[in-house]
């Protein structure tokens, strides 16, 4: 085995992949939430549609989006491998569990939280990403240029109560995943330092509250404003 595969097959190497892909997904979420804030403009969707076109055509964004797909796939595949390894490490469990006294519920259920996020992601990608790329969606024209009207697709989707409820709940799960994941990724990378760890934990706490709330606010806002 070469030293590269040896490292990446070790428990530490596998965790390194989890942390790096997880952090990349956090970067992605940051960009995604910032861009989608344009849904709050009261401009009939012009800014959002122009942005959506840019995001599907710009070459730099293309590279970033491929990295994002790769990160999701890598994160999920490695999480399956690690979860199986971790379960195999304790074939016989305890009759009485005291785990609630020594660790957070989110940290103990990253796999379940992640699986729910994955199910949500599949549905979410189908509703918007697939429609934007290959679906038959209406077009609009701004200053002589034609744009796919993704804004109207979003508007229609979020007039359905169940969709709004689903999105809000899914963002709750994302918040819990990140409440542990954010700081955990830095610990995995070895970035545990008396000077910086408190700041990392604080940023992680703010991030896992603010970002899911902003995401959840979008369907709610559209639901009550259309």
């Amino acid at each position, binding site marked *: 085995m070469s030293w590269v595969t040896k490292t990446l097959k070790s428990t530490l190497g596998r965790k390194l992949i989890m942390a790096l892909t997880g952090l990349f997904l956090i970067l992605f979420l940051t960009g995604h939430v910032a861009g989608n804030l344009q849904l709050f403009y009261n401009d009939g969707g012009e800014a959002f549609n122009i942005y959506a076109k840019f995001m599907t055509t710009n070459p730099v964004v293309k590279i970033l989006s491929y990295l994002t797909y790769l990160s999701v796939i890598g994160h999920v595949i490695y999480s399956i491998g690690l979860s199986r390894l971790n379960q195999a490490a304790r074939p016989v469990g305890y009759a009485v569990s*005291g785990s609630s006294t020594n660790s957070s519920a989110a940290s103990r259920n990253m796999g379940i939280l992640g699986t729910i996020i994955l199910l949500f992601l599949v549905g979410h990608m189908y509703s918007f990403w697939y429609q934007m790329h290959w679906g038959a969606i209406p077009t609009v024209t701004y200053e002589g240029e034609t744009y796919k009207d993704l804004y109207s697709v979003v508007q229609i989707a979020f007039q359905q109560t169940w969709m709004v409820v689903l999105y809000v709940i899914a963002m709750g799960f994302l918040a819990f995943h990140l409440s542990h994941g954010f700081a955990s990724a830095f610990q995995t990378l070895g970035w545990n330092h008396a000077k910086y760890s408190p700041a990392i934990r604080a940023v992680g706490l703010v991030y896992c509250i603010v970002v899911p709330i902003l995401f959840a606010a979008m369907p709610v806002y559209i639901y009550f404003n259309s």
Partner: protein
Amino acid sequence: MKLTLKIWRQKNASDKGGFATYPVDHVSKDMSFLEMLDVLNEELTEKGEDPVHFDHDCREGICGTCSLVINGKPHGPLQTTTCQLHMRSFEDGQSITIEPWRAKAFPVVKDLVVDRYAFDRIIQAGGYVNINTGGVPDANEIPIPKTIADLAMDAAQCIGCGACVAACKNASAMLFTSAKVSQLALLPQGQVERKTRVEKMVAQMDAEGFGACTNTGACEAECPKGISLTNIARMNREYFSASLTSENV
């Protein structure tokens, strides 16, 4: 005190095992947890039954031999070793469930005794310094800053009990291994084998079948010696940088 003990009984490694319930009476609040089990075992022996097997040695909290998951907590409700846990931490009439450490790498030998040689093999893989140390050196012959010496001493407090593995949902041995890596990586004497050591110890840890780390922090919370998670971060740094720069292709 009167107590009801629900204890894991298992004849040998291949036996399936199961819980047996024992009422015990006349337990003093000042007894240690192990002394309470001694009382039970005397009664069992008098009745001609097989006493409950459990590990213990120093009974003063320094050797790391005692174990037991007590009501779901390794070494019981306090952050100490089972031998240093006293019955005043329990209430009269309480029911107490006692289980062995549970991990694939720690197979049950009998009842509550588990085989912890996996830890020894991790140490054998690299947790030592390969130089002839000779006689006791003069004080301060090798200058080591106090802050660094303190960190190394903190890591060296690990008594190898395995409570970290028992507490971890993944039965991971990262806290133990990282303490053993850290205590040598921090000191000048440990520099020669620094990179090879962490590579070999991590490889052995994985080969033993311990789980990976999810950073839940359960190990740190249950460790009787207060070994900190910063050691795991240090081991990760040591490992990743050794992977990139050691001569071991």
